[in-house]
């Protein structure tokens, strides 16, 4: 579905010299600095996948999206999506994709969404009968029926955003790009949009790419996550693996019935690479880095050897992980 190989994008940025004299010299000879916004990006996506592209501001996310949607031409590497090369066959290619930019509106301010939909249908030359059935379904599932006939300027942000999603899907694209679709929306609207997207992915097998800063979006929608930093892809894999890689591990807090010291616990656990933190005489915490392999062992061993009154498992939230990624430098090497 999506094939990206060694994608590159360089920008030439004009370096202004300091001061008035510098400005004068700039008139005659300019100095440029080449900045690599996207550096050797490769990944592939199967049809029907739902995945998120995350990264700090300036990590090269939007440049990547712009290249994937055919807005910018790459300076190197290649992209093939739906069998099209976006920058070469743009007009044909954009018929097969839908794009929602959370910050920009694609509806006509003076018209009602319904009329905008009709205009968009003629832009995409959508077949009348089939198109109407699809539109009816969009209106029903996004629950926008009660206000689609009001002018867009009279709608609230949440109402408008749902109409934007419908507008991007009017031609039943096979691939949907969502660039920060839930910025500024309340929880209920977010939930509605997410439910709708999940359903769309289930029933229509639509491929969905999401960029967002809202971690709850990713948790609710995506199995697969791509993380970019300084133009490079630093992670490509499942959300669970992301948690293992960047999470601070999983912590298990044991409440003992008898006084237990950290040393006693250590003897029981043996050589297992884990950290034991003492809270008080009756409470100890065990921190393991790879939960899938170690957690069952820790639990069963400790439960078998001591009298336990309470166990709490604390997993790092995706939000913590994303914070971790953003704050560590990109020294971490990517894996496949």
């Amino acid at each position, binding site marked *: 579905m999506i094939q990206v190989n060694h994608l590159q*994008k360089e920008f*030439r940025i004009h370096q202004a010299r300091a001061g008035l004299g510098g400005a004068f010299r700039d008139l005659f000879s300019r100095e440029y600095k080449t900045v690599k916004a996207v550096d050797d990006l490769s990944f592939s996506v199967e049809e029907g996948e739902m995945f998120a592209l995350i990264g700090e501001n300036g990590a090269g996310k939007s440049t990547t999206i*712009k290249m994937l*949607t*055919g*807005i*910018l*031409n790459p*300076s190197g590497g290649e992209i093939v999506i739906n069998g099209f090369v976006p*920058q070469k066959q*743009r*007009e*044909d290619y*954009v*018929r097969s*994709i839908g*794009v929602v*930019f959370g910050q*920009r509106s*694609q509806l*006509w301010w*003076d*018209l*009602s969404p319904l*009329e905008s939909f*009709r*205009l968009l249908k*003629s*832009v*995409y*030359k959508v077949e009348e009968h089939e198109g109407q059935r699809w539109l009816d379904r969009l209106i029903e599932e996004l629950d926008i029926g009660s206000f689609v006939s009001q*002018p867009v300027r009279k709608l609230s942000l949440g109402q408008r955003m749902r109409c934007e999603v419908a507008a991007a899907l009017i031609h039943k694209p096979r691939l949907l790009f969502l660039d920060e679709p839930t910025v500024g929306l309340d929880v209920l609207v977010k939930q509605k949009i997410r439910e709708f997207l999940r359903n769309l992915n289930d029933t229509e097998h639509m491929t969905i790419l999401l960029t967002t800063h809202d971690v709850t979006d990713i948790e609710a929608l995506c199995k697969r996550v791509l993380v970019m930093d300084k133009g490079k892809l630093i992670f490509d894999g499942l959300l669970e693996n992301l948690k293992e890689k960047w999470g601070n591990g999983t912590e298990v807090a044991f409440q003992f019935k008898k006084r237990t010291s950290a040393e006693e616990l250590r003897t029981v656990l043996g050589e297992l690479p884990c950290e034991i933190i003492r809270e008080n005489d009756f409470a100890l915490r065990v921190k393991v880095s790879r939960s899938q392999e170690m957690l069952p062992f820790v639990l069963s061993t400790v439960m078998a050897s001591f009298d336990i009154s309470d166990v709490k498992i604390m997993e790092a939230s995706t939000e913590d992980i994303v914070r971790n990624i953003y704050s560590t430098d990109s020294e971490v090497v990517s894996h496949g």
Partner: protein
Amino acid sequence: MGEIKHVLGIFATYLGQYFKTRLAYRTDFFGELVSNLINELINLVFIVVVFQHVPLLNDWTRDEIIFIYGFFLIPYALFSMFFGFWDFNERYIIRGEMDRVLTRPLHNLAQVCLESIAPDRIFGVITGLIIMGYAAIQLDLSFTWYDPFLFVGLVVSGMLIYGGVYTAIAAISFFSDSRTGISPMIWNIQQYGRYPVDVYNKVIRFVLTYVLPFAFVGVYPAAYFLRKETWYAYAAFTPVVGIVFFSIGLVVWNWGVRKYSGAGS
């Protein structure tokens, strides 16, 4: 050709829906209708007062000048209706709306025009027709059956000339990353097309005929209806100029879009 038909069809659909929406909010619609008409009426009074003080300019009578002015208003009104993207730089380049436009399978200039269309400017056409009518009665002009068709053709050509020049200038935004004040520039130049060109000196006349051919928006075509035979050749040439300049505008625009996408660098 198919593409042009497609674009025109979408414009027609938009305008239909726009006025339908307007009519649905009846009080709003009539309020705006009245305020637009009053606005145009004030313009009209102003023009008449100004021209009261203009005697004869190089063989042109006052009524002839009023006629030219009235004619000029019509392609100008259509131009400002369809090419309303005076904030192009700010809205599409700086705020990045151009990105969204590029993800649609319709020519991007058509989309920009469609998004910034100002249908209310259509009232300018009415003012123009009233002024022309008044002058025509004063001048006792007579028209043939095919004149209305020529009129439409000349008006559309005039609109295309403005559109082409304006598009080319707006396309500068693709090349320069600073804010460019394109609208004041255009505004200054377009004023010249309203008056007979032979009142200007040679240089300006040359510029208005060949470089920025705004004389083709007002004077030359209007001269045909005033039966000034010396200008017939120019009037006949108007559609050609319209098509040529609009094509130039389009070429510059497309070049700019390619630059925007980074094909050149």
